[in-house]
C-alpha cells in the first residue's frame, strides 16, 4: 500500500492526471466532497421527514414514498459511486489512507449487501399450528395471479393495494398477456364475506345439497346458507353461536337425553355497585357456581345528593353461560325469587345505600347512594350449570326435491315439517325465518365472496337475541373487484375476489382465472411446530419468552432436524456454521403469538444472501473509523 512517492510528487501526480485524463477528471468530480456533503445532507433530511411521515400516517406510507422508493435507491447508488470515487481520488493509496479506504469501502460493501438482500432474499411469515407441517411462507406483498384457460400459463403480477387501493374513481387496468383483453380492478374492501352457493353437480356420486336463506326483518338482514350431506364440515353451520344448523340423511329422535341432578350449591354474595369486578363471594359448598351478580340503577345518580329512594336499583344475575336475568331491586328485596331454570333460588337479604363495615357489621353510613351494596344468598340447582343446548335446526332430504326439518330448543321439539324450494318457515329465535332456495339431489358448493356490509354496531344492545352475526360472518380478509374488458369496450360481469382465493371470469370465449392475495413462497422443506411454550414472569401473566420447538423435514437430509426459535434466538435451517455465516439458509425468528391459542405461533422467515456483505461491511466501517482516528502514521505530523 505504500509507494515510494513523496507527498509533493503525489500531489503533482493527482493534479496532472485530472488535466490529462477525462476519466480521472470525472472521478475527481464524482468523488468530490461537495457531492458527499450534499448526499449526506439530503439523505439525513429525507429519512428525518420519513420518520415523521411514519408517525403521522403509517409505516407503509413511509416505505412507499421514502425507504423503498426508487429515487431513494437511486440516491444510495449515487452515494456508492461517490464513495468509490472518493476512495479513488486518493490513489495511489498510502499508509495514512488505510482507515479512510477501509471505511468507505465498508459502506459500499454494506450497501451492496442491502441490495443483494433486497433483490435475491426475502422476508416472509409463517403461522404454524402444532403438529401440522407447512411448506408455504406468506410475504407481505399482494399479487394478482392470472391464468388463461387457453394455454394454462400462470402469471403473477405484483399488485400493491395498501397505499392507493383501487376504486371506481381510480381503477387500475392491466393488460393480460397473450390476449387482447385487459383486467380492470375497480373495487377494494378490507372485509370480505364468504357465500356458499349450492349448484347442481354433474357427478352422480355427489351428495345432496340444500340452499337456505335466513332472514330477519327486525335485523334487516339476509344470510345465505348452503349445506351438503358430505363432508361433515359442509353439513353443519354455526349460526353465529346462536344456533346450530345441520343437514343429515335422516332426522334424529328429538327426545333423547335427560339427566339426574346432583346436590344444590349454596353461595353468599356481597355485591357493591361501585366494584362490579370485585365481588365478595362465600361458597358454602366450596365450589363456585360461576354465577355473577351486579347492582345497577335504571337512573344512575348523577350526584351524591340524590336521595336513595328516588333511585330505581336493578339486580342483574349473570349465569356462567353469560345469560342475564334482571329484576328491579324492590321486587326481590327480602323475598325468595325463583330463577329462570325453575329450580334455583335467590334471596336478596339486605341492601345498604352507603355500605361500610362498622364494628364487624354492615351499615349504611348515610342515606345517600354513595356505595350501594346488596347481600344475596343463592341456591343453585347444578342442572342449571350445564350449558343450555343451543337451538338446533336439523334438515334431511325427502325424495328428490323436498326437505324435512325439525327445530329443537331447550331440549324440546318446537317445530317440524316438510318443505320444498320457495317455502318459508319460522325458526323460533327472534323473528328469523328460513326460506328454502334450492334443493339438489347431487350438488356441489361454489364459494363466492362479497364485501361485508358495514357491520352493525356490536355494542348497541347487549340483547342476547341480536346476533353480532354480520360482524362475525365477515373476516378481516381483504378483496378486490375485477372484470375483463375487451378492446371493443365489452366488459364481463364484475367478480369479487377475496385474498387467498381465485375466481373464473369469462368474457365471450375467453376464460380467465384471476387470483388475489399475499405472495406465497414455497420452502424446499417442511416445518412443523412440535411444542410452543410461553413462560411467564413470576407471579404474573406477562410473557417472559416465547419458545417454538420446530422440526424440519428436509428431503435432502436422511433424518428430520430439530431446532428451537425463541426471543432473540432464531432457528436456522439448514443450520450449519458456514451457511449461517454466508446467509445461505432460512432464519426463523419469533414474531407473533396468539394468546387465545397456545398451539399457534407466527415466525418471521428471513432468507438473506446479502448477509455476508452486510457483516463484512459493518466490520470494515467500525475498524476503518477506529484506524482513521486512533492509528495514525507515526511519521506524519500531528494534525489538530
Amino acid at each position: 500500500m505504500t509507494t515510494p512517492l513523496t507527498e509533493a510528487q503525489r500531489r503533482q501526480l493527482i493534479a496532472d492526471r485530472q488535466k490529462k485524463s477525462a476519466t480521472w477528471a470525472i472521478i475527481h468530480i464524482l468523488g468530490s466532497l461537495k457531492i458527499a456533503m450534499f448526499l449526506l445532507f439530503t439523505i439525513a433530511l429525507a429519512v428525518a421527514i420519513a420518520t415523521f411521515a411514519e408517525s403521522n400516517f403509517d409505516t407503509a406510507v413511509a416505505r412507499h414514498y421514502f425507504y423503498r422508493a426508487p429515487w431513494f435507491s437511486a440516491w444510495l447508488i449515487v452515494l456508492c459511486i461517490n464513495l468509490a470515487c472518493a476512495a479513488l481520488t486518493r490513489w495511489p493509496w498510502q499508509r495514512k489512507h488505510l482507515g479512510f479506504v477501509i471505511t468507505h469501502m465498508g459502506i459500499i460493501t454494506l450497501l451492496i449487501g442491502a441490495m443483494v438482500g433486497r433483490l435475491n432474499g426475502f422476508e416472509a411469515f409463517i403461522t404454524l399450528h402444532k403438529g401440522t407441517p407447512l411448506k408455504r411462507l406468506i410475504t407481505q406483498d399482494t399479487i394478482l395471479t392470472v391464468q388463461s384457460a387457453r394455454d394454462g400459463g400462470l402469471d403473477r403480477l405484483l399488485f400493491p393495494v395498501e397505499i392507493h387501493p383501487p376504486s371506481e374513481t381510480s381503477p387500475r387496468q392491466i393488460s393480460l398477456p397473450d390476449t387482447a383483453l385487459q383486467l380492470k380492478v375497480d373495487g377494494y374492501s378490507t372485509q370480505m364475506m364468504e357465500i356458499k352457493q349450492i349448484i347442481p353437480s354433474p357427478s352422480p356420486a355427489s351428495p345432496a345439497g340444500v340452499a337456505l336463506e335466513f332472514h330477519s326483518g327486525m335485523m334487516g338482514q339476509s344470510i345465505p346458507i348452503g349445506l351438503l350431506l358430505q363432508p361433515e364440515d359442509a353439513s353443519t353451520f354455526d349460526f353465529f353461536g346462536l344456533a346450530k344448523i345441520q343437514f343429515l340423511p335422516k332426522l334424529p329422535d328429538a327426545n333423547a337425553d335427560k339427566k339426574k341432578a346432583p346436590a344444590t350449591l349454596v353461595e353468599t354474595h356481597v355485591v357493591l355497585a361501585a366494584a362490579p369486578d370485585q365481588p365478595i363471594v362465600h361458597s358454602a359448598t366450596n365450589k363456585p357456581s360461576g354465577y355473577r351478580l351486579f347492582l345497577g340503577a335504571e337512573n344512575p345518580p348523577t350526584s351524591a345528593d340524590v336521595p336513595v329512594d328516588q333511585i330505581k336499583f336493578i339486580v342483574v344475575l349473570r349465569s356462567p353461560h353469560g345469560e342475564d336475568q334482571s329484576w328491579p331491586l324492590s321486587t326481590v328485596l327480602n323475598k325468595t325469587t325463583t330463577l329462570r331454570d325453575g329450580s334455583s333460588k335467590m334471596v336478596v337479604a339486605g341492601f345498604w345505600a352507603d355500605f361500610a363495615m362498622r364494628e364487624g357489621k354492615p351499615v349504611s353510613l348515610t342515606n345517600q347512594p354513595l356505595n350501594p351494596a346488596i347481600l344475596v344468598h343463592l341456591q343453585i340447582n347444578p342442572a342449571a350449570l350445564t350449558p343450555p343446548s343451543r337451538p338446533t335446526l336439523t334438515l334431511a332430504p325427502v325424495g328428490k326435491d323436498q326437505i324435512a326439518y325439525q327445530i329443537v330448543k331447550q331440549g324440546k321439539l318446537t317445530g317440524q315439517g316438510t318443505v320444498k324450494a320457495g317455502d318459508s318457515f319460522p325458526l323460533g329465535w327472534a323473528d328469523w325465518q328460513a326460506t328454502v332456495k334450492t334443493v339438489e339431489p347431487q350438488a356441489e358448493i361454489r364459494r363466492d365472496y362479497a364485501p361485508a356490509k358495514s357491520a352493525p354496531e356490536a355494542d348497541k344492545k347487549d340483547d342476547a337475541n341480536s346476533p353480532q352475526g354480520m360482524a362475525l360472518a365477515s373476516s378481516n380478509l381483504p378483496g378486490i373487484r375485477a372484470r375483463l374488458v375487451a378492446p371493443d369496450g365489452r366488459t364481463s360481469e364484475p367478480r369479487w375476489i377475496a385474498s387467498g382465493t381465485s375466481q373464473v371470469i369469462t368474457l365471450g370465449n375467453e376464460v380467465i382465472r384471476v387470483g388475489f392475495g399475499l405472495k406465497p413462497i414455497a420452502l424446499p422443506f417442511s416445518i412443523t411446530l412440535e411444542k410452543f411454550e410461553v413462560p411467564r414472569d413470576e407471579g404474573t401473566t406477562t410473557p417472559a419468552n416465547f419458545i417454538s420447538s420446530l422440526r424440519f423435514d428436509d428431503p435432502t437430509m436422511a433424518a428430520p432436524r430439530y431446532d428451537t426459535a425463541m426471543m432473540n434466538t432464531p432457528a436456522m435451517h439448514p443450520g450449519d456454521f458456514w451457511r449461517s455465516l454466508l446467509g445461505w439458509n432460512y432464519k426463523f425468528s419469533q414474531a407473533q403469538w396468539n394468546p387465545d391459542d397456545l398451539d399457534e405461533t407466527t415466525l418471521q422467515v428471513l432468507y438473506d444472501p446479502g448477509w455476508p456483505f452486510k457483516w463484512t461491511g459493518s466490520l470494515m466501517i467500525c475498524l476503518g473509523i477506529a484506524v482513521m482516528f486512533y492509528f495514525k502514521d507515526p511519521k506524519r505530523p500531528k494534525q489538530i
Partner: protein
Amino acid sequence: MKSPISNLKFLPLVLLLVSSAFAADIVPDDAQLAQLAVQDRGRKKPFTTLAQESLLTLTGKSDYQPTEVSPKQNAATVLIDLWMQPDKWERKPLIQVSYQPLAVGVMGLPAKQKLFSYREVADSVPLRTLLTDLQRQRMRTPNVELTPLQKQAQQLAERVRLYESWAHGQVALVPHPSKADGVWLPIQDIGTYYNDASGAAAQNAFVAAREAWLKNDTTTFDTAVGKLSKQLAALSPGVYPTPDELSFERFYQHFHPFRWAWIAYALAAIVLGVTSGWLEKPGYKLGWILILLGFGFQIFGFYSRIAIAGRPPVTNMYETVVWLAFGTVLFAIILEAIYRCRYFLLAAAPVAVLSLVLADALPTVLDSSINPLVPVLRNNFWLIIHVLTITLSYAAFALAMAVAHIVLGKILANPKRNDLAPLHNYLYRTLQVGVLLLATGTILGGVWANYSWGRFWDWDPKETWALIALLCYLLVLHGRIAGWWSGFGLAVGSVVCFLAVLMAWYGVNFVLGKGLHSYGFGTGGYSYALAFVIAELIFVALAIFKKRAA
C-alpha cells in the same frame, strides 16, 4: 368466573376490619418492614419498595401530603393504613388526576386540586362511561390507537385498580412453597399453600400486627411485623429472599447513590469554575477528587441496580439518563487524564449534574423502579453491547456539546480571540469518540436486529434517528475537511448536532412514539425538551452573530 377474593377466609377478615377514624400517624420501623418480602410485577422486593412505588403511582409523589399545611407521611405509613383500614381512606384524597381535560373537562372535578379520593374517582359516571366505551372500542379493534384522554383515563383506571388491590388486601406476602417463580398469595389465602400450624402462626402474627396498627401501637406493630416476616420466610426458605438481599435493596432505596453523585459533581463544577484563575493547582486537585468521588457513587449505584435486578441497567429512559451522566464523566476522566486541561472536567460536571437531577426530580416521567425486561430485551449479549455503545456515544456527544459551550462562551465574551486551537482540538477528540461509538453502536444494532428480529435494518424510527445523528456529525467532520469551517464550526456543529441526538434518544420515544405525541409524559418532559432546544439554538445564533460581527 373466579372472583379474585373468593376465598372464604376473606369474609371474616372484612367483617373484622374496624375503622378507628382517628388513626395512625404511627411511623413503622422501616428496617423491619423491609424484611417483609412481596411479589410484585414479576419480582420479589421489600415491602418498603412496593409501598414507595405504589404511592408514587397513586399520587405522583414519593411522600404523602394532601395539602400544603398537612404533615408529610411516608409511603409505608399511608399504604399500611390503606391496607389495614380501607374504609377510612375512601374519602381521602389519594389518587392523582392531574390531566386537566380529564379531571375538569370530563369528570367535573375542581381545577386546582391534584389529588382526589377513591370515591370521587371510582364513582365518577363520566369516567366509567369513558372507560366502558374504551373497552368496547378495544373489543372491536384490539390495536386501536388511543387518544390522549383515553390514555390518561386508562392510567387513572390503573391507579384505581392499584388502590383497590391494597384496599382489598391483595398484597402477595405468602411465598410459593417450592417454585422460585411460583405465584405468591395474599395473607388471607395462606391456607391454600400452608394449611397447617405454621400457616396459622403466620396468619396470627399478621392479625397481631393489624390489631397493633389499629391501636396506634408502634412498638407492638414493629415486633409483630418482625415475627411475621420470619415466619413467612420459614415457610419457604428456598424461595424467600434472604434478609441480606432485602436489606441491601432497602439500603439502595434510601441511600440514593445517584443523588450523592450529582452533589459531588456539582461541587466539582463549582470548585473547578471558581479556581480557574485563582488557587489553580489545589482547586484542580480538589475538582479531580470530587469528580472521582461522584463517579464512585455512580459505580456503586449501577452495581446496586445490577445486583437487585440481575441485569444490566440500560433498559428505560431513567437508566439511560443515568448512564449518560456516567459516560460523560467517564470520557471526561479519560481525556482529562491525557490532556490535563481542566476543560473536560469542567464541561462534564454540569452535564452529569443536569441529567442526574432530572432523573432524581421527575420520578413520574423517568421511572426509577426496577422491573423485569420485556422478552425481546432479555438474555441478549448483543443488545446490551449495542445499547451501552449507543448511549456511551450520546455521552461523548454530550461532553462535546459541553466543551463547545466553553468555546462558544469564550467567543461570546471576546469574539476576536484566536487562541482557541487547543480547545478546538479537545472538541475534535471528543467528537471522534462519539462518532466511532455511534457508528459502531448503530451497526451493532443492525447485527442485533438481524439476530433477534430477523432482519438487519428496516428503518425503525429509533435506528433511523441514530443514523440521522451520525450523518449530522459526519457532515460536521467532512465540512471541516472540505475547509468550509474550522474549530468554530465544529463547536456550532457539536451543539446543533446534539439536538439530533436528543431526537434519537428522547424524541423518538416521547415525540414520535405513536399516541404519545403530546401529553402525559409530554406535559413535563416535552416542554423542558423544547425549552432546551430553543435555548441552545438562541445561544448558537448569538455566538455566530458575534463572531460574524467581529
